[in-house]
């Protein structure tokens, strides 16, 4: 058996998880030795119980291997799923350097290349329109600079990041908290398929594993592990994204956060991160700078001024446009802020919307389109 087969064999054994596999590897040094050793030797391994030994010995039987390893690999091949074990050349070095790296990764599509800078963009699921447009904009700007975007395919910020990257035909990677064959949440199937095409979908879990709550913090360590920098766009006080940020810190990655208004619940997490020393993201340039500090050379990085290019508008349109911002404002607020009559405001808003410089996010609420 080769390393890949042994890794699959190991992770398939009942009662043996990541931790115990690591104990075994530490003791035997090579995966081969685990397979070849006899029962007696297993007793010497710390952290392995008698029951585990029984299971390991049982798993060495021929019929077990043909069913759970050989057939399993066949099935993976049929479904175009690759298994990249941690001894393989392909296994990302960034990931290998983290504590508790996964024994193997299931991959559909491609894994990131070693020299490509990758940024993780994470944030709240129930995010605001503002957060969504920031995430989308950051992702698409970074993509156009050749930076890979990694995220968790969750609702909200994650989706915005993936779709922003896909918008610019960038490379985007989705790390799942469930089996590699599952799309969770199911409504994101389109982006899921797009990710496979443009970048890759990655999971620690094999086919058929349901999206259990416990899987997600584990997934977060892969997201941060695969990235060079983690950008938190919107997060509440107790957010899963903060776990990702913590793990990124543990793994020695850069943590960046997009600031928000102090009164907004969705900004609390991010503002706290900044308070505690995370780099503040005011524009793409901040992320690029951070990547350059990490030793990457980003070609064609834009200066801050260029990111927001000017558009020429008639004076009335200018007035209304100035009032519309990245936070959704309803017609009433816009009216109050620019002191114009209802009909004029409505007419101008429609004109601006048809010019694609603002967009209606929900009935009666308008935001600016970023990047203009």
């Amino acid at each position, binding site marked *: 058996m080769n390393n890949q087969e042994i890794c699959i064999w190991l992770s398939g054994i009942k009662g043996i998880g990541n931790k115990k596999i690591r104990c075994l590897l530490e003791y035997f040094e090579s995966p081969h030795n685990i397979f070849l050793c006899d029962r007696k030797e297993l007793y010497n391994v710390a952290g392995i119980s008698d029951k585990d030994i029984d299971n390991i010995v049982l798993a060495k039987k021929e019929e077990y291997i043909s069913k759970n390893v050989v057939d399993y690999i066949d099935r993976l091949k049929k479904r175009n799923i690759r298994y990249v074990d941690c001894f393989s050349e392909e296994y990302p070095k960034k990931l290998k350097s983290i504590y508790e790296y996964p024994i193997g990764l299931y991959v559909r599509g491609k894994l990131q290349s070693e020299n490509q800078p990758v940024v993780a963009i994470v944030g709240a699921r*129930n995010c605001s329109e503002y957060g969504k447009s920031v995430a989308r904009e950051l992702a698409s700007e970074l993509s156009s600079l050749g930076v890979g975007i990694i995220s968790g395919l969750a*609702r909200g910020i994650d989706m915005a990041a993936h779709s922003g990257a896909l918008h610019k035909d960038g490379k985007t990677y989705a790390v799942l908290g469930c089996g590699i064959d599952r799309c969770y949440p199911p409504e994101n199937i389109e982006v899921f398929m797009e990710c496979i095409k443009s970048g890759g979908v990655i999971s620690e879990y094999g086919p058929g594993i349901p999206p259990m709550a416990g899987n997600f913090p584990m997934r977060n360590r892969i997201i941060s592990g695969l990235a060079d920098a983690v950008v938190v766009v919107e997060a509440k006080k107790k957010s899963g994204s903060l776990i990702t940020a913590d793990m990124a810190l543990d793994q020695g990655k850069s943590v960046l956060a997009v600031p928000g208004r102090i009164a907004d*619940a969705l900004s609390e997490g991010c503002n706290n991160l900044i308070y505690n020393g995370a780099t503040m993201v005011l524009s793409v340039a901040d992320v690029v700078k951070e990547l350059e500090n990490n030793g990457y050379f980003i070609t064609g990085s834009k200066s801050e001024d260029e990111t927001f290019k000017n558009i020429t508008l008639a004076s009335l349109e200018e007035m209304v446009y100035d009032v519309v911002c990245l936070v959704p404002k*309803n017609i*009433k607020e816009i009216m109050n802020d620019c002191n114009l009559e209802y*009909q004029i405001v409505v007419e101008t808003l*429609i004109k601006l919307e048809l010019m694609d410089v603002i967009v209606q996010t929900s*009935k*009666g609420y308008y935001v600016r389109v970023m990047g203009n």
Partner: protein
Amino acid sequence: MFCKCFSAFVDGITSISVTVEADIGNGMPGFEMVGLLSCEVKEAEERVRIALKNSGIKFPPKHITINISPASIRKVGTAFDLPIAVVLLGAFNLIPINNLENTLIVGELSLDGTVKAIKGILPITINSAVNGVSRCIIPADNTREVSVVEGVDIYGVDSINTLIEFLTGRISVSPCYGMNRDMDMQHTIEEDSFAQIAGQEEAIRAVGVGVCGMHNIMMTGPPGCGKTMIAKAIPSIMPNMTMKESLDVSRIYSVAGLLNTDNYHITKRPFRAPHHSITTVGMTGGGANPKPGEISLASKGVLFLDELPEFSVKVIETLRQPLEEGIIQISRLNGTYRFPADFMLIAARNPCKCGYYPDRNRCNCSENEVRRYMRRVSRPILDRIDIYTWVSQMDFQDIKNNRHIYSSLELKERIENARQRQLERFKGTDISYNSNIPSACIYDYCKIDKKGEDLLEKAFKKYKLTMRGYYKILRVARSIADFEDCNKVELSHIAEAISYRMD
């Protein structure tokens, strides 16, 4: 001896004429009633017998047979008491029979001989005029309701004794003909409900435009922002009813038994606001002998459905036909009934379950939850709503300054004016409001210039409008122009109409 007279009973919102016959013969004394009668009609026997006895009339013991024909139609209601009593009196020769020719009699009897009001007197008398009856005798309490009916003399009686004296010619009762024929169509001035609403300019304007052209409106907004208050103020700006409309609506109310001596005629446009626990039958009308439901009672007026997503799906879906055709068809064992239901729908809803989306500081609903909440009302129903407006949270400045932009009086004046324009515009057609301009002749009524066309074309592509959505925008633009007292549909009207689209 044999005697007969005409009577009628309510069926749907029309009436069916019948003949009530009595025959007195020898044989075993008894009282027999035939003619496919429901049990409340059969119970008339006791009421009639005792009412006559208590009115001092004595019968010799004879075999009495009552027949109500045509015998093939099932008869319902309590309006047959009085005609039965009258034909009995005729058969016993207590009143002259020839006086009953071409006379339609309806009324319920009390045991002491007084005549009580019945439901649905309006369709009965209106129909009798059509069927060539020259005289109606009805309960005195019902006379105010029918004072607008033309072509037939209507007499109100309050007891059997009055009726006998009237029929024998001993007293004369003046017909209620012309009693208030010109009707008190003069309209009471409502309290100025819109002046009590601070701020909410956009929503009130949208409502004004909607009322102008009878467009269905959806108000979306957080709880407590005044959606219900705006809706409740709408009756104060509804245009006055024409005589014909008033008669049509009164007819429905008469059948539903909602008219009485104080409120004997509907001169104000109805405003119905059923609670969301309403059943399908309550909404559409129904029952073994179908009665009009809320949508029919809201005819020519407003049906306000507060918290639309909370209504049961079935109830909302039944609104499809009436919203499209202005009638509701109810099929029951006894037949198919068509009730009018051309109401203006005003619906209110929250943007999500907690009500505060997109304010992320208060709303923690996931996008899916928001979508699911919005999806509770099906697309076909939403498609039939012309104007979508956002009612925002009240501004403290507005509350403090008590800033009122619109007053009911001013709004009503503008709306009356806009309705007048529509009346003139649609003269000679069967279109009554902008909202029911058929798409075939939409360009005849909503002419737009090049600039407007360009805007519409851009909007059509950008928002991926459907044909229905496109025409809707044109109709609403027409109403906005009318509201603004403009002959031409201008660019700003079209832009505003686009802003009222669904999403």
